[in-house]
């Protein structure tokens, strides 16, 4: 049994600090979740109580321990049609607006980090299935990640049943071929349609090449970054988007906390961030 306890005051102190740094607020109902992870890190770092751990974490110049905590508090897994309300927002609200502005010109979408490919393929499937203009407007999807191994997996397009568990049955049938061992292979046309590239979002030379996008999906990446990297990423996205271009972040992320370069747009389905149409403030 653990002897380490998190008091109410400890919890409040941690909650305020974490909120200020990340924008993520833990309600009282999350108390057990937070305490458990805090105690885990207190033990792992060899501290005897919350106070000594908090001081260590709060004043550590590298911010490494804070990032460890962020990773623990925000564990995510990827799967097809994750946070589907944003995909809905794309086809029902965002794309109609962009098409109106660009007429029938090519639309370019960037998915980063694409990890093992669930996100860019979800975007592609969503467009094909739910966007009425897909036969009239050309769309390019560029998917990138810093990790070449996951890019390789994306290109192979083989997924387990957990990854596809939220896909409607008819979509699964239409775009996937069942393999042995409960695995699924995604349609070859889709694999060929998406351009997978290795990009480090914090590397200026890498991101210089990423231009003229209308939409960026960058969900649940910035939360894992330190403040400096987050600002660099926001700069890169700003330069990568066309004026009026839109960026989708994860539900617990907020661009407003990183930079004032983007405008907040509230659509019925989701909140997104937009590069202003003019660069004059």
């Amino acid at each position, binding site marked *: 049994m653990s002897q380490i306890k998190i008091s109410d005051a400890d919890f409040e102190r941690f909650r305020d600090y974490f909120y200020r740094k990340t924008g993520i607020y833990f309600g009282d109902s999350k108390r057990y979740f937070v305490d458990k992870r805090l105690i885990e890190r207190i033990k792992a770092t060899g501290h005897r109580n919350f106070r000594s751990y908090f001081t260590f974490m709060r004043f550590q110049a590298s911010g490494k321990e804070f990032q460890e905590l962020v990773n623990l508090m925000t564990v995510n897994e990827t799967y097809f049609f994750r946070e589907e309300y944003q995909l809905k927002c794309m086809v029902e609200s965002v794309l109609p607006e962009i098409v109106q502005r660009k007429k029938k010109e090519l639309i370019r979408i960037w998915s980063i980090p694409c990890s093992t490919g669930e996100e860019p393929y979800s975007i592609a499937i969503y467009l094909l299935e739910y966007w009425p203009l897909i036969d009239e407007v050309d769309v390019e999807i560029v998917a990138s990640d810093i990790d070449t191994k996951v890019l390789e997996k994306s290109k192979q397009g083989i997924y387990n049943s957990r990854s596809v568990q939220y896909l409607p049955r008819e979509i699964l049938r239409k775009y996937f071929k069942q393999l042995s061992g409960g695995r699924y292979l995604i349609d070859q046309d889709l694999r060929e349609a998406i351009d997978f590239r290795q990009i480090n979002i914090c590397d200026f030379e890498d991101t210089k090449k990423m231009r003229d996008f209308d939409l960026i999906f960058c969900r649940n990446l910035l939360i894992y970054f330190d*403040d400096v990297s987050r*600002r660099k990423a926001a700069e890169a996205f700003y330069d990568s988007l066309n004026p009026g271009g839109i960026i989708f972040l994860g539900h617990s992320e907020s661009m407003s906390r990183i930079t004032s370069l983007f405008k907040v747009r509230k659509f019925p389905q989701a909140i997104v961030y937009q590069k202003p149409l003019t660069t004059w403030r």
Partner: protein
Amino acid sequence: MALKKARDIQKSKPKEERRSLKRNFQGLINQLNDPDIQIRRWAARELAGFEQAVEPLCRRLQKEQVLSVQESILNSLLTIGGEEVVKNLIPFLRSDDAGLRNKVIEVLQALPEAVAPYIEKLLRDPDSDVRIFAVDILQVLPHAQVPEWLLQVIRTDDHVNVVAAALDRLAEVGTPEMIPALLEVKQRFANEPYIAFAVDTVIERTKSEA
């Protein structure tokens, strides 16, 4: 299916990247004053690779009105880092532009080692607003001396708003050893109900750790 494979990466390079202009240090410094916003912004971003760009970037920041260029300049300064950046950014704490001032505070917060030698002087600044901005820098500054600096503020500062700001930060980093100083400040500002409330909050939080 109207999904198209992306264009060749070379073709998708922006105009700025297709230019033939040589991008040496002096060329980039000249471009910082270009009337074209995009050119200024790109020059500012590229100057992140030059340590000697601190002064010219700060000079540009003084007159730069475009938000996106301001951000590029500040991010490049943050990338360069070090004491030279801190020294050149501190005067911006007196800027009338609240947005710029707040961004400067954020950059300073991200440079803990370089900003540390300047904190005490800022906390003694004759202008109470500057002292509040110094306390703001301490808000998330990852530096071991933060509690000590805050304690110094509540012990010595006469301005109620500066002390209130410091108490607010102490709610997070205060320790039981600070209780006597906290009680003292409550007495010093006996006519300020907010100070009493803030002190009680800090004490409540620190006591439960004891």
